Every structure is written in structure tokens, then in C-alpha cells.
């Protein structure tokens, strides 16, 4: 009865160095709340203060980007595999200009 979550290097300081942790939840936000209870602070790296999925974090349910599955409301089931990857992005523009360009 668990959902496997693959954690990138940059977030492993929240998981005691673990690359893979387990959690539970019927939705992505439920899973993230469950993970945050065990790995305090992790939620703040994935969710903005406004409660949305962080723009520069990619989360996948099995082979699908959660942005195509309802984002934080994405439905989960036991046996699903979650992968978290920090976005690889940037460029010559300033941050505010980039955000505006991307409409976020």
C-alpha cells in the first residue's frame, strides 16, 4: 500500500539522503502532504505559497507529466511511481521577464 517517489539530489537533504521514499495519498496534493509529514519542508520546495505546483519543478506520475493529469489534483493509486525532477531551464532573460514570457 504505497506510492514510490523518486527524489532528485537537490531535495535529498529532506529525505535523509534517500533517493526513493514511499508515501500515500489519493491525489498528488494528498501524497505531498503525507510526504511533508515525514520529510518536513519538502512541500515548500514543490508548492508555491499560493498553493500551486512550483513552476520550475517537474512531477511525473508513471510516464506522464502531472500538468497533463490535473496537476495537484492528479489521481493516484497504490503502485504508482512518482518522479520529481527540477526543471532545467534558464536563459539570457531576467527572471521576471522570463516568467512574463511564459505567462506564469
Amino acid at each position: 500500500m504505497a506510492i514510490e517517489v523518486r527524489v532528485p539530489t537537490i531535495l535529498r537533504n529532506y529525505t535523509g539522503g534517500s533517493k526513493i521514499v514511499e508515501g500515500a495519498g489519493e491525489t498528488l496534493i494528498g501524497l505531498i502532504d503525507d510526504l511533508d509529514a515525514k520529510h518536513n519542508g519538502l512541500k515548500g520546495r514543490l508548492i508555491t505559497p499560493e498553493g500551486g505546483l512550483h513552476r520550475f519543478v517537474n512531477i511525473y506520475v508513471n510516464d506522464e507529466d502531472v500538468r497533463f493529469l490535473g496537476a495537484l489534483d492528479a489521481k493516484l493509486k497504490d503502485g504508482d511511481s512518482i518522479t520529481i525532477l527540477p526543471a532545467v531551464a534558464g536563459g539570457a532573460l531576467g527572471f521576471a521577464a522570463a516568467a512574463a514570457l511564459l505567462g506564469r
Partner: protein
Amino acid sequence: MGTATPRRRNCFGNVNVVLTIDRTILDAIVAHARRDHPDEACGVVAGALGSDVPSRHIPMDNAARSMTFYEFDSMEYLRVWREMDDRDEEAVVIYHSHTATEAYPSRTDADIAGWPDAHYLLVSTREPDSEEIRSFRIVDGVVTEEEVNIVDATVDA
């Protein structure tokens, strides 16, 4: 982050000192940057886990298709990272081009950089007949430039 153990120096293990990279791979990166100019180009060079040796060049799509911004396509990113995992590799180098500015990480680059163990390689293609190539570590938004040591070795680009 901050827990890296000291690795070999003065040979190919060169964390935080220098990026050692094969000329063939660097040429392929520059060719990719030229091909996508004036849009920014991006990609990775994979290498064996813990080796710090970039050996397999993987040009990637710039999903932003922009002259001033780049972003890995999310599905390609997942596919490439899974493949590296299966091959016991990691992203030794993450590169992108700046097409009208210098090869130095922008504030955006530094803020977003999420792989503290990678060498962030930047190529500037603003000059039509020469490239500026520089490499950096970016940890917690802090940019540290490192030397680029170009070698003529025998890896497949």
C-alpha cells in the same frame, strides 16, 4: 549538496576544479548551438555515475524555442534521465547557449539550476565566427566559474 566527499584530483576526477571534456563532444555541442542559433540550444553530456567524465552527448529540444530562454521538454527530460539511470549514468554536463550575450549564467540560470553536481556549460554564439565557452558550478544559486580543460581522447560523441 555540501556532502560531497573529496574526489581524486590531478587526474580525471575533477569536481569543483575543472571540467575536463573531450574536444569531439565540445565540437558537437558548439555545432548544436550554431544549428539552433538564434534560438538558445540545450542538452546534456552523460557520464558514468561518480566518474565526472562526460562521455555521451545528448542534444535536447528547447521547449521554449526562444532566443532568450530555454527549457528541457518535460517528456524528453524524463526519458533521457530514465535512460541515464538504466545505464548507471548521470548528467555530468548540462549545457545551453546564449545567442546575444556572454557565456555567463544569468540570474535566471542561477535561480533555477537544480543539479548541484553538474557542470553548467555555457556557449555564446553571439559572434558569428568564434564561440565563447565557459563552465560553472551552480549550488544554491551561487555561481562559481571553473576551468575548461579540453582533451583529445577517444570517446564516442
